[in-house]
């Protein structure tokens, strides 16, 4: 599928992806979607998954050792 600035793509009945601007290094998109469909950059999703993993840190003894190692760097 090839699109130029000003054109758009429809996914199903409710989602529209508009190509607003194209430069040699980036594309500006507009996305129209129902409120219940979250639209986020992929990096935000990576951070979301990473936060879930980070939310279970180890016990304080391990953290004290880690802190000591960081101070010695």
């Amino acid at each position: 599928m090839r699109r130029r600035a000003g054109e758009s793509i429809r996914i199903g009945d409710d989602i529209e992806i508009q190509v607003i601007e194209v430069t040699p290094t980036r594309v500006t998109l507009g996305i129209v979607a129902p409120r219940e469909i979250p639209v986020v950059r992929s990096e935000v999703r990576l951070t979301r998954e990473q936060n879930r993993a980070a939310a279970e840190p180890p016990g304080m003894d391990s953290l004290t050792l880690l802190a000591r190692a960081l101070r010695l760097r």
Partner: protein
Amino acid sequence: MTKYFGETQFDESAVLRFPAGLPGFEEEKRFLALEQPEQRPLVFLQSLNTPELCFVAVPVFAVDPGYRLEMSEADRTLAGFQANEEIRIGANAACLAILTIDESGVTANLLGPVVVNLSSNLAVQAVAPEMRYSHRTPLAGSALGGRGTEPCC
């Protein structure tokens, strides 16, 4: 009530307010940043909403002394920075990388650091507009092994 430090007294002015929460934790809008001499340079981001939720973070410069912060306009606004305000880590902003500590080692999320506006205590996890840094940046140094590993010192 905190995950690591039992009952902790705090002043309301010390509360970090995340208007949008954090990705994956959108309802968590109030945190304390706790530090202890024994655990420096670690910073404990303790949720005030959920006692068992505590992220462990370090200042980004402890991971990468040359770190360059990039924030989207939306994140700048969320953290209450003025349109043309220069954001300087250590001056008007604090910038922390959340650590993930598991069997395979310790990594820091430099892609999406927590940025605190020090003049308002508004905070945001600012996922950079460009992927210059990784969300799993390894902490260099063989002493920083996984959970339970003894550092050699």
